[in-house]
């Protein structure tokens, strides 16, 4: 079966693939075709937030997003750390607060917060940042340190 080429921008790199099935999820394209394993598969039902990435700066669940539905758009993943100022800022806050235990959920938390900083601006309120995390679960229940990272994000400013 011949497939149309799908074009994406992933972490500021142009990507063209002709091997993406119509029903493939963005999560699988990132992990298995582009070898970007930072984005995690948790529940695959939209409940845990581990697969959160940004689509044109907005947080999205990559397990419930068809790759071909985001044709032409700009995808940001946890690997964007060094080149994306917002992702870098959130990552630094998580590191400084020691906001991870096993680390599996961390990319999802970081990307949800990076999305909130994009949507609400760098001076997002604590309530706005916490709302953005409502869909992220940490099975280690390491929420205390994650909340400290959120506070650090606010104190340290842009």
């Amino acid at each position, binding site marked *: 079966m011949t497939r149309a080429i799908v074009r994406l921008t992933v972490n500021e790199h142009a990507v063209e693939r002709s091997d993406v*099935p*119509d*029903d493939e*999820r963005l999560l699988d394209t990132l992990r298995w075709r582009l070898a970007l394993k930072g984005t995690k598969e948790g529940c*695959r*039902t*939209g*409940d845990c*937030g581990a697969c*959160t990435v940004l*689509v044109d700066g*907005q*947080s*999205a*669940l990559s397990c*419930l*997003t*068809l790759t*071909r*539905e985001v044709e032409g758009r700009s995808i940001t993943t946890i690997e964007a750390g060094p080149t994306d100022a917002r992702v870098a800022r959130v990552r630094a806050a998580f590191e400084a607060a020691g906001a991870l235990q096993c680390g599996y959920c961390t990319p999802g938390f970081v990307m*949800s917060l990076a*999305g*909130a900083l994009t*949507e609400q601006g760098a001076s997002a309120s604590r309530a706005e940042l916490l*709302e*953005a995390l*409502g*869909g*992220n679960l940490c099975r280690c229940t390491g929420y205390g340190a994650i909340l400290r990272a959120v506070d650090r994000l606010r104190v340290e400013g842009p």
Partner: protein
Amino acid sequence: MAPFELVVPSSVEEAVAALRAADPAETAVLAGGTDLLLDVDEHRIDPRRVVSLRRLPWRTLDWTGGVLTVGSTLPLRSLEMDPEVARRYPALVQAVGAVGSVALRHRATLGGNLVRSAPASDLVPVLLAYDAVVDLVGPRGDRSVPVDRFIQASRKVDLERGELVRSIRLPEPRPSAYLWQRVRPANDISQVAVALAFAPHERSWRVAVAGVAPRPTLLADVAEHLGRGRPDEAAVARAARLASERSKFQTDRRASEEYRRRLVATLLRRAIGSVLRAGGVPP
């Protein structure tokens, strides 16, 4: 699971034609996909063709004639973030904010939520309380259906072959509130939810409940007990008792019938308090 073919029409006419020609049993319509793709993954449906609405010009928010018209494929998050919607349709924004998570609402749509017609939908009760109207396009032309008639049962709506939801109209801003109770605030389904609105021109209330079988429902007799303006404490107590008695609750894994009966009375009393405090309801 057999892979499906994704069809992406670039006009409304093309989308309607594609749906009309397709076998409904093998075809699904994709808006945000946050519910549809779950059904695919869990083998509740196995479509051969999925028709995506992403290129249709329906990601709109329109105030023509003082009526709020929401395009069916507008992401819920865009609706929620609009300050004018928040000011004039407070319960709508409260209900949208109860759906999934922020990341989910960046993709999920009002049209999709309606057509999927979940018994515990947060949006259906609020649309009932605003007397919203669903605008459809199809092979035989346009038609409009009140939400109360459009929603028939779980996963069942008044949509003919080839028809699509173009927009949802909310004819007038109303003092309103939407309150819910659930185990987890995000990414969960309400045990019970109450949508309350006061229709200023008719001077009458609307009460809708979710978490009931088989679909979110307007409770007309409860609304009547609230009278034609601000209800007194006795009227509120009567309405709360009646809501508890009349709602068709069932026991399931989320909550028992008895718990839901208590909950609906509490949520209704709180919703009334919230609407009266916000102002806009005459004595």
